[in-house]
């Protein structure tokens, strides 16, 4: 091996430097870019832990006030959505989206999951989109099955963003997964040598090449040390810090995820999904719900800002949770796992300023098993209509493949 090998133009190119302005690189442009099936975008956010829909969108109801003495005790937020429906005060950052007609809710919905109230099974069912908790081999997610049935599925780029693998996007259709929190610091010399060792293994080389480009888009990647601007010891310090999550600002991990998704959706991607956790508010809900609500608000705004007005105008965001929570407060000023819940919708493509769905009553006899909000509709039906209106999937595909056992029913008029 001699110097000639090192000097030939490799896939990493010469002189990649901080930040890597690689958007224009022909290597990075996915094949789908030229011929995607339409311009509409769909984002699915899984809210893990069980969002208390009755607290995010608060009905004005005497029976409910009795059941929730501390949660509904304070002054109301003044953010009136529709008559009698008030937005939680901590969701105030979402108010401009509501006013712009880019926010809506669906009340009283649930997956077909009943009785057991386990996060584990509830999330599996939500992501599988089935009637029964999925088991055994060949499990896949409804978002993946949606991609498989889309008219231009092979041309559609989809991203699952974040650290944890999601059942939602698993399956036969190809979905790119990326977590902006994966980031390495490598010298350009190291990158060239890496390429050299993978030269005869095309599969590994291709995956590595994409990884380097993606890492460059979110601040990590390949850095010029010896012959560029950066000092070698500066690079060394960065390398030391790469296993330290604090160095990357753990508190803002959710923003990095949403921003990365927005960036991909602004380019070639048409579908993206990620999760936001922290909704399992068993105690002191008035306080503990604030953080996940902030994360949700931040994420929706980061999507909007990151996509820019034209793309946002074609975007539908669905935020779904595995179940709602008990109607009554528990002994620790929180709520326990329930059944009927709430879906949040956002995006420039939706018909905003709407609270869809039917809310059952709060008297004991109205509740599901005398404790939970009685579900009045299948949440999958609303997701299915959003998909139908965004991508034109037909009824049989939605009822038979994407959400088996679901009845599509009448159009709720979700999109503008």
């Amino acid at each position, binding site marked *: 091996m001699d110097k000639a090998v090192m000097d030939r133009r490799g896939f990493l190119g010469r002189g990649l430097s901080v930040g890597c302005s690689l958007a224009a690189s022909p290597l990075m442009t996915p094949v789908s870019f030229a011929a995607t099936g339409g311009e509409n975008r769909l984002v699915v956010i899984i809210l893990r832990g069980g969002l208390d829909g009755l607290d995010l969108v608060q009905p004005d109801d005497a029976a409910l006030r009795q059941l929730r003495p501390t949660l509904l005790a304070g002054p109301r937020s003044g953010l009136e959505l529709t008559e009698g429906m008030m937005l939680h005060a901590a969701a105030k950052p979402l108010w401009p989206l509501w006013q712009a007609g880019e926010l809506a809710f669906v009340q009283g919905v649930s997956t077909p999951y009943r009785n057991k109230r386990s996060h584990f099974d509830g999330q599996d069912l939500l992501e599988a989109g089935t009637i029964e908790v999925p088991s055994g081999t060949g499990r896949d997610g409804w978002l993946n099955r949606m991609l498989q049935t889309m008219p231009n599925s092979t041309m559609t780029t989809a991203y699952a963003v974040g650290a944890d693998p999601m059942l939602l996007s698993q399956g036969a259709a190809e979905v790119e997964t990326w977590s902006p929190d994966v980031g390495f610091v490598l010298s350009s*010399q190291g990158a060239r040598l890496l390429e050299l060792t993978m030269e005869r*293994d095309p599969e590994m080389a291709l995956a590595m090449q994409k990884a*380097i480009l993606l890492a460059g888009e979110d601040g990590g990647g390949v850095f010029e040390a010896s012959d560029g601007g950066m000092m070698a010891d500066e690079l060394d310090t960065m390398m030391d810090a790469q296993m330290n999550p604090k160095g990357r600002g753990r508190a803002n991990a959710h923003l990095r995820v949403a921003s990365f998704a927005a960036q991909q959706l602004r380019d070639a991607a048409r579908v993206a999904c990620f999760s936001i956790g922290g909704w399992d508010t068993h105690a002191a809900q008035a306080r503990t719900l604030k953080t996940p609500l902030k994360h949700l608000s931040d994420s929706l705004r980061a999507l909007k800002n990151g996509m820019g007005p034209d793309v946002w105008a074609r975007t539908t965001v669905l935020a779904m949770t595995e179940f709602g929570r008990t109607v009554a407060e528990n002994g620790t000023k929180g709520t326990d796992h329930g059944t009927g819940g709430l879906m949040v919708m956002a995006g420039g493509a939706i018909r905003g300023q709407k609270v869809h769905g039917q809310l059952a009553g709060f008297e004991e006899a109205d509740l599901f098993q005398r404790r939970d909000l009685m579900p009045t509709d299948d949440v999958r039906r609303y997701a299915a209509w959003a998909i139908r209106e965004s991508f034109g999937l037909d009824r049989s595909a939605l009822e038979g493949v994407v959400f088996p056992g679901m009845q599509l029913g009448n159009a709720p008029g979700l999109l503008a």
Partner: protein
Amino acid sequence: MGFDPDIAQTRFGYGLSPKVTGPADITDMVALLRAKEPEMPWFPLPSDAEMREKMLALLDARRKISKAEKGSDAHQALQEAFKTARRAAKQEGAKWIGATLARRVWSRDGLRERLVAFWNDHFSAPGKNVIYRYTEAAYVANAIRPHVNGRFEDMLIAAVLHPQMLHFLDQNTSVGPNSTIAKKRSEKNLGLNENLAREILELHTLGVGGGYTQKDVRQLAELLTGVTTIQKKGTAFLAKRAEPGAETVLGKEYGKRRARMADVHAVLRDLARHPDTARHITRKLAVHFVSETPDEDLLVSMGARYLETDGDLAEVMEAMLRHPAAWAAVGPGVGNFKQPELFVSSSLRALAVPKERFRDVKSQELERLLGTPLRMMGQPWRRPFGPDGFEEADSYWLTPQGMAARLQWALGVPAEVLEDLPDPRQFAETTLGPQMPGAVKFAAEAAESRREGIALVLMSPAFQRV
């Protein structure tokens, strides 16, 4: 093609170590596997009873808190005590993971450790709550590990009837619809849960293509009623929960007389010896260890040995090792791509990370150096999506994110777990052996820093494909 001392360790173990010598030949490999497990006094394995006691203590501490008066000093003291106990339990969880890694890094019998991981995945039962997340270590130590060189039927019985699996697959909620207890408490609507029965047939024994019907699932589920967990004792058979009458599974009748555990054992033994199970198990082993498209003759030979020996797993492994196809050379772009756990474990072995480093690891550090990176690579520690375990296909793992996370780990972690990084040139030689490709040798020499040199070796196809 036959025995190769390097492949013996890379394909059938956790890779080459600069400190531990590998097996000399196939006879040596088989002898190591058949031998009694060597003691590792610095890392004893947890017993089920010991683990159960600890967890009960934890539950008890939590119960006491709810009984104490809120706001009182006693309440606060109990809460503090519970927090301390929970921290200790978490640290204990880290200790078991450290112990598992230490065995992979320092054992001469790498094949045994690989088999423990393989069978743990085959009988995946990740805890669904805090308690069961901690007890999984005892499940692996007692239901899986002792049987990797024994009969498949013994492992099957130990694993599917272990409290870990009974909880994971909802057996504890399954009650015969006509049982004494269901009739007595008719207001509770107690009934059958088929989950465990279905997965036994579909995943653990016959395989999804096996010759069984929904009726067999139902009948097996009825036969399993009565099997449940008693918190203080572990697995138990309670006749009052059992469905009365005989059940027929794959055409054979069980449980003609009163309901008892012996019938459950009998059906599991019959399922274990079934030809469909032999086919399913041997194929899965061959795909996992040798190739995504295993040699037909290798499968025939392993399957025959399985049936001849009523599923003696040491015999089946010997049949694999004695077959020339098991030793096919790895080339550029050819060979199984390591799953993340294997990648990380074999890297630690190549670096000969000292035992003390594993023994003394704190749970937070373990999360940072192992837990989070494995999640990023797509394989959170022992947390597959479901009872079918982790994906086997190479294409699932060979992704941009997976490669990025491996590179991040390879650049960051070795420097944190070792006082001094080895010289990359020497490291390349001890890790890849005489088959080291020229490009890797060149890269190890040309790297600007030791850190990058080590990472380049660990990232090379020669290390990642086995």
